[in-house]
């Protein structure tokens, strides 16, 4: 551990003399400096460095955030030359009393639950498998990480081909060789959401795996050694050592994935477009339709965006509390 080296008495004297002499020299040096430079204090220089970032933050984040909050209380279309008309809570009332919005929230919740749960299981499982080093484990880990590096639209496009009942590879792999009885993954209301979940799990389980691997590698070996000496079985070690030690990182992974799942848009648009009907219409897809796609209902879509924001903040808070408990316990 780093400890500061205590100064000896002699060193203190030298330092004192040096500083005193510097202070004594200061007025003469200042007089020699140009006037403009002397006026820039350290605080001013700091402010000057920070100012562009602050301005950028205000222009790109704070102002749009506050302005969109204002817009959410108005009737307004961004493509109209009519200024926003204040309607109070009307947009929020309409959204919360419209069954189609509740339906899209339910779809989003179902998707998030299924997808994040499976990603956690698969990601954690992969991490346990790749925990011990073996020949080629580095290469395998890298290959497993490839899906999350791809563009979601690219992923959706080729999974669409994989799911295709006429020539897709998935159905034959699952044993469905008769095209007439093969499941139509993206066209069947009972399968469409599962199809998106499968793709999301394929794409993002590596992310969970990566965080879990980091957590697993930080567990000291002596804990397992001590447990083995005490004849603790595998399940006991997993439950009492592995899981609690990985839990903080696992919860962070789950938090990130839940937030992303609630914002799910690109995979849905690329795979099903929200269909069949509105079976896979997530809140983000509905938000997109409301905000663009010929409707340009900016006021209402801003209100919906704020509702989504509140939901995500609420869920994040629950996770963070759980995270703090996991860390504390």
């Amino acid at each position, binding site marked *: 551990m780093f400890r500061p080296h205590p100064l000896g008495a002699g060193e203190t004297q030298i330092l004192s003399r040096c500083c005193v002499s510097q202070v004594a020299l200061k007025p003469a040096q200042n007089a020699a400096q140009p006037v403009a430079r002397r006026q820039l204090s350290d605080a001013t220089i700091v402010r000057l460095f920070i100012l562009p970032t602050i301005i950028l933050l205000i222009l790109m984040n704070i102002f749009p955030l506050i302005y969109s909050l204002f817009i959410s209380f108005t009737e307004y279309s961004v493509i*109209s030359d009519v200024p926003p008309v204040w309607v109070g809570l009307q947009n929020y009332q309409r959204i919360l009393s419209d069954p189609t919005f509740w339906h899209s929230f339910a779809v989003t919740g179902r998707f998030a639950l299924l997808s994040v749960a499976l990603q956690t299981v698969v990601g954690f499982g992969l991490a346990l498998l790749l925990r011990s080093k073996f020949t080629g484990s580095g290469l395998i880990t890298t290959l497993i990480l490839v899906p999350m590096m791809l563009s979601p639209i690219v992923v959706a496009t080729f999974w669409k081909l994989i799911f295709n009942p*006429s020539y897709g590879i998935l159905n034959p792999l699952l044993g469905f060789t008769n095209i007439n009885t*093969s499941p139509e993954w*993206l*066209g069947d209301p009972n399968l469409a959401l599962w199809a998106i979940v499968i793709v999301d799990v394929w794409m993002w389980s590596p992310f969970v795996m990566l965080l879990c691997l980091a957590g697993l590698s930080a567990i000291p070996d002596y804990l397992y050694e001590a447990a083995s000496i005490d004849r603790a079985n595998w399940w006991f070690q997993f439950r009492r050592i592995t899981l609690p030690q990985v839990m903080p990182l696992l919860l962070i992974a789950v938090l990130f994935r839940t937030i992303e799942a609630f914002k799910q848009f690109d995979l849905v648009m690329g795979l099903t477009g929200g*269909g069949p*009907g509105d079976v896979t219409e997530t809140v983000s897809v509905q938000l997109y339709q409301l905000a663009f796609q*010929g409707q340009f209902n900016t006021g209402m879509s801003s209100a919906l965006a704020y509702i989504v924001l509140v939901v995500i903040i609420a869920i994040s808070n629950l996770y963070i509390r759980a995270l703090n408990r996991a860390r504390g316990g």
Partner: protein
Amino acid sequence: MKKFSLLLALMAVLALMTGVSVRAQDVTELTIWWAEWDPANYLDQLVDDYTAETGITVNVVQTPWGSYFDRVAAEWAAQGTAFDMVVGDSQWIGQAVTQGHYIDLTEFMNSNGITETVTPATLQYYGEYPAGSGSYYAYPTEGDANGWAYRKDLFENADEMAAFEAAYGYPLAVPTTWAQLRDIAEFFTREDEGLYGVGIYTQIDYDAITMGFQNVFFSYGGDWYDETFNALGVANTPDTVAALELYRELYNFAPPGTNNAFFAEMNDLFINGQAAMIMNYFAFFPALANPSINPFSEQTGYFSMPEGPTGLRYAALGGQGTSVNNYISDERKQASLDFLLWFAQEDVQLKWAQLGGYTCNIAVLESDEFLAVAPFNAAFAETMTFVKDFSNIPEFGTLLEIVQRNLHAYVVGGEGDAAATMDAIAAEMDGVLVEAGYISE
């Protein structure tokens, strides 16, 4: 203070001089915005002639279809002058006119006789707003509508013809009614051979399934709402329910996996030999006539939409009209009108058609030269006399979303039945129209 006054005076003089120079300056270039596709490339070639004649450069700026409306809408919102003319979708016109983005072309088109040169349907749907008002805001530029491509080698095969006649009691030929089209689709659906009867639009994203269904819907006497904007009892009639049932049946004769299909998928199905017939916009048929793309190009025939049970015949309209930006200067507006006047000439329209553009000019459409340019031009010329569009009121986006969602749920998802679907569409549309103030509750 004296220096400041002098500076102000100098700035005022400079501003005046600049203003004078702009007013005196002739327009040397014009900008047209259009979506990124082949017709825009053809227009880009055509305008070289205008440049040669007048010295005015015309820039055709293309934006991918997916973001085209967003880009134009953003420019409208900013009252921008990035374009002088825009080739806008037929559905935009209500919004653009009511919000003042397009200039009124009525006087210009009437006084120059342009209204007489284009087919009435294209003038109505691409140029007129409100419907029947006689007020025009766009010159019909790229006519387009749905038609059909079919495999002549299958239709003209002696064995197939005999088998069809034995099964259905009438000869196999290009269908003239929707009922015949359904029979032919059923006949050619042979799952074990990987051959299916039809390819139809099913995409949910924007307007595809609605456009595909409208071909049947309108021909069965359907309308989304009447002249008083009443949708209840208009969109959901026994005839429109029958139309939807037929469209659902056709989906059963389409290749598996076409649950979210639009123009690209239609051409793919045909080129892959999976479908005996496909519906598509005429603008996408040139690929099927190209032997390097379509192995069946020599055996590909084209036909217009069949008629409904009462003889009504409609094709869902695509295509666009050219409008002039209301926010540009008067000089630029005049220069844009001069360009439109040139573009509307018959010889220019003929060249436009020869390049591959789908003219709306009556004389050109009827000319032998046009009919000979491409194998599908005869079907196109016929189709342009019976086209019909979806709503073009400013609320069209909201109405469209209702139709898309409900149609897709029934046709692709198999949810509910046709009657319940049409009832739901009518009820939801009614809610939007009431809220928008078109009808009282």
